[in-house]
């Protein structure tokens, strides 16, 4: 079988796109789980007591130091074995955990960048701390977090290519199959790179649009 560069668009890309729904859904769930948990942990870290703060800092330090592949294999071979979750969710979960600590740092910085006077003014009109966080601090912090969050989204999409090592069939896994068949790694990886480039570029483009749409004079 002869495979050349001109077949990248007619054969390779369409074939690899068979894995895109898995790539994108793994990334999406990892990002969303990471966002919800990361935001919650960020608020705990900023407003929680001293013990909570120390715990969060330690949690963040540990998981930021852990390579994706190590966590992926740990979760798949150790944890997935005992609680019986699929490869798909083992992969998603390990990406989510690491993304969660990075998102926690992003949200923490954003929360801390909101002027303390905002909280004081909210409390002064009788808001509880929870209401003040929800209605005053969070809307401002999320807007400020968005540019860094866009980077994190790109990072997670790219990191999702690692889940092929535990056998999840996404773009990279299909690429391995194709290379085994055709022995044309260069052409295949070019096609893979093209697909990731388009995914990441589109995601960043959409998120920048969102950022502009939500922009408010004098914030961020």
């Amino acid at each position: 079988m002869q495979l050349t560069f001109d077949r990248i668009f007619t054969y390779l890309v369409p074939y690899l796109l068979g894995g895109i729904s898995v790539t994108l859904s793994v990334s999406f769930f990892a990002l969303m789980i990471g966002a919800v948990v990361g935001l919650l942990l960020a608020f705990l870290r900023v407003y929680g007591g001293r013990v909570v703060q120390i715990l969060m800092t330690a949690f963040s330090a540990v998981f930021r130091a852990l390579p994706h592949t190590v966590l992926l294999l740990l979760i798949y071979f150790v944890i997935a074995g005992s609680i019986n979750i699929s490869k798909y969710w083992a992969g998603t979960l390990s990406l989510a955990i690491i993304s969660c600590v990075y998102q926690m740092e992003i949200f923490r910085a954003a929360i801390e960048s909101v002027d303390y006077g905002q909280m004081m003014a909210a409390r002064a009109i009788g808001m509880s701390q929870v209401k003040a966080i929800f209605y005053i601090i969070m809307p401002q912090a999320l807007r400020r977090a968005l540019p860094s969050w866009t980077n994190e989204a790109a990072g997670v999409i790219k990191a999702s290519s690692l889940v092929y090592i535990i056998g999840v069939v996404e773009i990279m896994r299909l690429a391995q199959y194709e290379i085994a068949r055709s022995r044309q790694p260069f052409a295949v990886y070019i096609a893979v790179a093209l697909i990731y480039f388009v995914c990441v570029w589109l995601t960043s483009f959409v998120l920048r649009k969102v950022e502009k749409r939500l922009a408010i004079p004098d914030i961020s």
Partner: protein
Amino acid sequence: MSKEIIRLEGIKKSYGQSEVLKGIDLSVKESEVVVLLGPSGTGKSTLLRCINMLTVPTEGHVWVDGQDLTAPKVNINKAREHLGMVFQEFNLFAHLKAIDNVAIGLTKVLGVKRADALERAKKELERVGLGDKLDLYPGQLSGGQKQRVAIARALAMDPEVMLFDEPTSALDPELIGEVLEVMQKLAQEGMTMVCVTHEMHFARRVANRIVFMEGGVIVEEGSPDEFFDHPKTERARQFLGKFNGQFD
């Protein structure tokens, strides 16, 4: 004799080793306008913040409308609903339009329906002369306009007392007048007010009582005429001497 609204008893506040307030007693009656004067760093703002417990006193009691806010298990959020506060740095909610800055306390704290809250917010903004700025964000307003929105935000909650913490200190000189005007109007309408300010003309014209603080204690108290024309203490005389340029 009119009703006492605020009573402070033996208020002390320390931050670590430094004692900022060293035992303050103060009583404010309904419709009274009390102006706190004194050099910077003498605890005036701290004292003001003790009234709505944004700063919790180390010792002493704060009564507002007969309720001891320093007692354990007081619902402080409930108590603050009717203690309006205006800050030196405005602290408008940066992500909300002027009208929503005023309405949010009504909807999220008092549970007023949104349509009614917006109606009320519009009225309050008109009252401070900003009926044409409803849909602007704080970042699009001048300092004086921001401060007037902040006053409207506090007024919308139907406060029994308004606390002003150096409301004009962060303003350009040409914008101070518009804010003082709103405050004076409020005073004339009978609002109970406690103001920390360095605006001596305003203090003299609007206050019923001047409270002069230095070093965390009240040094002298009296009517504006007494205080400005015949200060009893040497420290008050020295303080007023620095403002001589302001008096003709």
